[in-house]
């Protein structure tokens, strides 16, 4: 099986937020909650770069390591998913996550945090694939339909790449070699303990 990864080519990102919008619409993410976001660093200065960031589906995921009810699991495609029926909304995954991916869209009892919600790499959750139950809890399951995450599919400049880590790394490598420069794969060192060798 493929090892699924996200790769953002910051040289191409134009901060159009199409990835954010596509994600929100595809999964009916509630108001005020973004599974994916675009952060601009060095804004207005030389070297300004925009980076689209969501759950990176880490190798040795910190969220899974600290979860007290072990609600996280890794699929055969190395996508990190979680079971919302087991999640108790303790927020430990949010403390541990280096990318700020876990969100808490709903309130629990007595004003506590509700179930955690995060990017699923468009791979749904533990419920049966493409059922209404899965859609309500986790959003659509495009991977089960043989499609890739919609954020990357919608990216007009193809700055955001999603798919088999080997393939997207080779696409990025080719781009860097052709144009002669690149700012690297954001978050790869933190998430996958490796960088794209050029």
């Amino acid at each position, binding site marked *: 099986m493929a090892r699924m990864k996200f790769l953002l080519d910051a040289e191409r990102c134009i901060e159009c937020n199409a990835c954010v919008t596509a994600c929100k619409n595809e999964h009916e993410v509630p108001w005020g909650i973004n599974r994916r*976001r675009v*952060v601009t*660093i060095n804004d207005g200065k030389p070297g300004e770069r925009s980076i689209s960031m969501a759950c990176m589906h880490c190798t040795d995921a910190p969220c899974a390591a600290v979860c007290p009810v072990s609600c996280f699991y890794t699929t055969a495609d190395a996508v990190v998913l979680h079971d919302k029926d087991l999640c108790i909304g303790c927020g430990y995954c949010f*403390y541990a996550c280096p990318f*700020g991916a876990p969100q808490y869209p709903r309130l629990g009892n007595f004003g506590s945090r509700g179930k955690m919600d995060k990017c699923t790499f468009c791979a749904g959750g533990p419920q049966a694939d493409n059922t209404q139950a899965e859609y309500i809890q986790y959003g659509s399951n495009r991977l089960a339909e043989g499609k890739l995450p919609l954020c990357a599919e919608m990216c007009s400049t193809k700055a955001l790449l999603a798919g088999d880590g080997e393939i997207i790394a080779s696409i990025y490598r080719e781009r860097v070699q052709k144009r002669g420069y690149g700012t690297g794969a*954001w978050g790869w060192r933190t998430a996958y303990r490796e960088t794209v060798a050029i």
Partner: protein
Amino acid sequence: MKLRILGLLAALLIGAAAPAMAQTAPRAPSMAEEMEVQALLRGGSIQGRISIPDEKAATLIQPEGREWREFHNVTLAWVGGIAVLGMLAVLAFFRLSKGRIPIEGGAAGRTIQRFNVLERANHWMVASCFIILPVWAEPDLRAAHPAAGGGPGSLHRHQPMGQIRA
């Protein structure tokens, strides 16, 4: 004239340097890599600007979680384990070294009431609820998630009382 010559010289220099830079740049550590390593070393985070109202989301990468994970999964587990098992060991050591310590002169035979019937009934009702609730809720959780099974965390999954047999 002088300025023009200087300008030409500068243009030549830049022109000569540019191809060399283009060749070496991809091999040098990239901006992303460098910023991640620096943030990790300083314990700081990579901050930016964001167009959504949630200002906290402007933090791109923050390494503090790594330390928290280490503390939670390693330090706390050891400290907690030692605190519980260590106390047991201390008590066992005390008992073994001092033996039983009886009341001087033996019990007087008089008793006083500490809790009345209502208080005792309340105590035992709560105690039995603590046992019944997890035992009762467990099959429901199992039925909903055969893959999840029981596990050590199952006792802590409190269900709102009205929903147990809903």
